[in-house]
């Protein structure tokens, strides 16, 4: 085991919450064991409320597992850190900072010399095609631009892994398609490990090396599907649709299996 240490290892991870209002314990995820290799693009799909975000939050260090542990390069994750950049669905930009200040926030916090920061941010802004809007505030930007800023501000930190929590769910279809392409291109160029949570089967197949399908709550791993299609991928190709159908069926089973009292979705 030590000779071939996995990049990321979930070891029998459980997470329970106490529902304060009803006074009962909710099992969000149950007995998850998973290994992710360096440079892999992993997407996680599952029915709504199946604990996919909890899964990501534990890797980010925002939440601690109730049992089991998560190792990053053999070290247990103790809390959030700049080595794990998170892109949130709600962007979570600092509204009081301009676009450039948002991007430069991380390097400043990590004590990078100011002379270097400017150069880094210029390069990162060009990478996500945001050059020219540096002095605008987040509320002046479109959803797509905000999500580019959110991506830029974690990329500038050069994280070991990129965590994306349904990052494009709030965007319109065209913007979403463009950003999906750009993320795919970015990954091809940098081969950075990506852990990407989505509820869209198409998005999962479009982007991932591996798709992890989860069961309805309590979330367990139902299937771990390798997508060996060449990139860039053609969503209209038969092979793409085969994967899509397989995964959609897995997901539909789970949605059907949910207790009727929860009203399906």
């Amino acid at each position, binding site marked *: 085991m030590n000779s071939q240490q996995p990049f990321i290892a979930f070891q029998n991870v459980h997470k329970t919450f106490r529902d304060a209002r009803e006074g009962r314990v909710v099992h969000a995820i149950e007995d998850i064991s998973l290994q992710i290799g360096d440079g892999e693009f992993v997407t996680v799909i599952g029915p709504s409320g199946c604990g996919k975000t909890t899964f990501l939050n534990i890797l980010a*260090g925002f939440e601690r597992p109730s049992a089991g542990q998560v190792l990053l390069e053999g070290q247990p994750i103790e809390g*959030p850190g700049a080595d794990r*950049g998170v892109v949130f669905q709600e962007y979570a*930009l600092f509204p009081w900072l301009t676009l450039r200040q948002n991007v430069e*926030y991380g390097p400043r*916090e990590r004590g990078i010399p100011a002379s270097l920061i400017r150069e880094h941010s210029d390069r990162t802004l060009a990478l996500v095609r945001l050059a020219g809007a540096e002095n605008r*505030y987040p509320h002046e930007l479109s959803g797509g631009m905000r999500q580019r800023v959110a991506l830029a501000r974690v990329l500038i*930190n050069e994280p070991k892994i990129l965590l994306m929590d349904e990052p494009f769910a709030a965007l319109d279809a065209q913007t979403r398609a463009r950003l999906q392409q750009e993320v795919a291109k970015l990954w091809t160029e940098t081969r950075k490990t990506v852990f990407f949570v989505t509820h869209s089967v198409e998005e999962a197949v479009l982007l991932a090396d591996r798709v992890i399908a989860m069961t309805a709550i309590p979330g367990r791993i139902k299937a771990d599907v390798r997508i060996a299609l060449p990139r860039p991928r053609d969503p209209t190709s038969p092979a793409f649709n085969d994967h899509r159908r397989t995964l959609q069926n897995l997901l539909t089973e789970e949605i059907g299996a949910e207790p009727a009292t929860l009203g399906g979705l």
Partner: protein
Amino acid sequence: MTQTSVSEPVRLVAAEPATKNLEEGGEAAREKVWRLLRRIALPAVILLAWQLVTSAGWISGSSLPSPTTVAVAWWDWIFGPRQALAWYSGTWVPYVVMSLERVAAGFAIASVTGIFLGVLIGWYSAVEDLFDGLINFLRAVPMTAWVPFAVFIFGIHESAAIFLIAFGSFFPIVVNVAAGARQTPRILIRAARMLGTPPRKLLVRVVLPAALPAIFTGLRVGLGLAWVLVIVAEMLAVQGGLGYALWSAYQFSRLDLILAAIASVGGLGLSSDRLISLLAQRALRWQTGVTGR
């Protein structure tokens, strides 16, 4: 031609406009004039009616002085020679300075302590538990109820006035700031953490800026209260200042000076409120609601 247009921009519009641009410019200028007229119409009507009623003798000059009487008294109060016997002549400027200084000192103390404690209360539930009951109790006591206490402790002294102002304006500030800090979006805290901010810096990096709109709301309410309290304090607890002048004018039965003092306080309160909204506008440029206007 140029001369007329400089001195009378409105006439340029009335004279046949040469281009469409000029016409539109004139339209905007006319609209501006109308807006100004609408804004001053009501105060002008009130002043006029007041003048009319008093000078026609429907109300005797001894029960309600006319606006011109008030203006003359005010003029004397500001520009009159300072004499030992004339208690008001020439004292307006020093009194205004006194009141301003008291408001500034008390409000500064209240702002610093209110923002500091408010952020801590809003962020640390332990601090909230510690202070919540006490603050809510003290807040329920009308500030004027503290006047005898303040005079008893500090005597007829500057510090009594500053205590009252600081103590009174502290509460709206602390309560607003605490509410603002409490509502810091959790996702922004997470974002800061994953970008490398250590927990001990979250307060300055995220909570304080996120609470900024609430801080300015608190400051504005606090400043308004500071003006209330400076008048109360000067009527009862200290010598000099606009509140002192107000009370003296009452004791000498000088309604004209009472009205002049009221107008002075109103003007100062309005100006200081304008100042703080201007500051807020600059500091909150990043907010949609503020920049959008």
